[in-house]
């Protein structure tokens, strides 16, 4: 009788210890899940912050900016000729800005009813210049002036149009 009671006690304790172990394991898993989801959130928040700050500065970076090509130095002015040259070398710049896509879309005036993507053969009779194109999930944009040199009746003029530069990130993660 006493032996049975003792065996019961050991079993009770074994179950208790097992339950305590399981409890700690579950608590640990719960903490890990919360920490991991927080980490993922903060990573995407940082990505978003990067894209937001990048879009405001991109038009003034040496690869995009008009500089003194169209008279005095202008802010938020993109040199379309330079960007077309950049487009042809876009493979070199795939990781340069840390975003997935960069696109410049002419807003006004629109050349044709349909939006046409720019290539070296149809430039400047086109509306959209895609510099990087690795999928879009979230995006930020900024209004800019898009300037280029244009020959009208043998004379070279500066032509500036209104455009929107869009930066997107997280396309690969979706």
């Amino acid at each position, binding site marked *: 009788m*006493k032996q049975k009671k*003792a065996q019961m*006690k*050991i079993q009770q*304790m*074994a179950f208790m*210890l097992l339950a*305590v*172990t399981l409890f*700690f394991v579950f608590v*640990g898993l719960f*903490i*890990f899940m919360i*920490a991991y989801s927080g*980490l993922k959130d*903060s990573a995407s928040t*940082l990505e978003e*912050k*990067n894209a937001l*700050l*990048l879009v*405001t*500065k991109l038009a*003034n*970076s*040496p*690869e995009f*900016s008009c*500089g*003194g*090509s169209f008279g005095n130095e202008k*802010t938020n002015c993109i*040199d379309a*000729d*330079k960007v*077309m*040259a*950049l487009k*042809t*070398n876009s493979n*070199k*710049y795939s*990781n*340069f*800005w*840390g975003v997935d896509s960069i696109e410049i879309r002419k807003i006004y005036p629109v050349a044709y009813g349909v939006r046409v993507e720019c290539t*070296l053969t149809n*430039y400047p009779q086109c509306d959209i210049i895609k510099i990087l194109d690795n999928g879009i999930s979230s995006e930020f944009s900024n209004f800019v002036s898009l300037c280029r*040199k*244009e*020959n009208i009746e*043998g004379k*070279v003029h500066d032509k500036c149009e209104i455009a929107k530069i869009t930066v997107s990130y997280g396309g690969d993660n979706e």
Partner: protein
Amino acid sequence: MKQKRGLQISFAWLFAIIVGAIILFLAIYTSIQIIETEETALDAQTAKEISILLNPLETGFETGTSNSVIVPTETRIYNRCSNEGFFGRQIIKVSQQNFGEWTETDIDIGFENKYIFSGNFEEGKKFFLFSKPFEFPFKVADLIYLTSSEKKYCFIEPPESISDEISNLNQENLILENCLINSIRVCFNSGNNCDVEVSYNGKYLDKNNERMYFYSDSLMYAAVFSDKEVYECQLERIMQKAEQLSKLYVDKSNLIAGEGCSTNLIQDLNEISSLEGSFSDSVDLDGYMINLAENIESKNKVINCRLW
């Protein structure tokens, strides 16, 4: 009977002690692992946040303005650089003090489009940042200078332009008069006890018995605030970017030629591009290269269709 009872109790205790010890060990081990993961994550997050906060400094609007970053705990910001690929990489690593010990992290946060000049690492709770554009001859990049508030730089007899710039920056660790005892003495006309000796006209400076060559004020500041290893690596990265930009301007020049805008810069741009491509040390920043850049700049200023 008595003996049996004694055995029963001791077995129960033994069982409880062994399993209890295993549970305690697992709990402590898991806690340590979680803490270490959290520390690494925090270091990586801080490094990424610092890098992202640098974005506004690169617009050119923030030139001449000093900004500060304050962190809650004693922090070391390690500045690493690599020259691999077309643009190389700016790498930032952060280590924070936790219970008197520095956290160790293997996670490097890297960016291709940033150029930070500092010592191998900067330590403190408050860090100062300011930026200046580097033009060679076109704008290549905004150089960012990172210093800890614990490091005081005392500029002795600087040229007027530098003196004005520093006083306008109003950055508390950059001093023009009354040098503090522990400050780093930056001399422009070879004084006593100089930590950094700048030959402004010779375009070089000596620091820790090592010579660094510069062109323009932006690179001079870079050399003053950096260790030689960081300076040379970042300068090579800047030249890598300048090479790509020179090629970009050659392509642009060909493109606008179709619109009747011919420039006579293609040959010169190709030459400077190849010099920038073979750049490996600040010694390469010689008179020939500088003259070529200045010549290109003066040609660009007078043509009808300016490239930049």
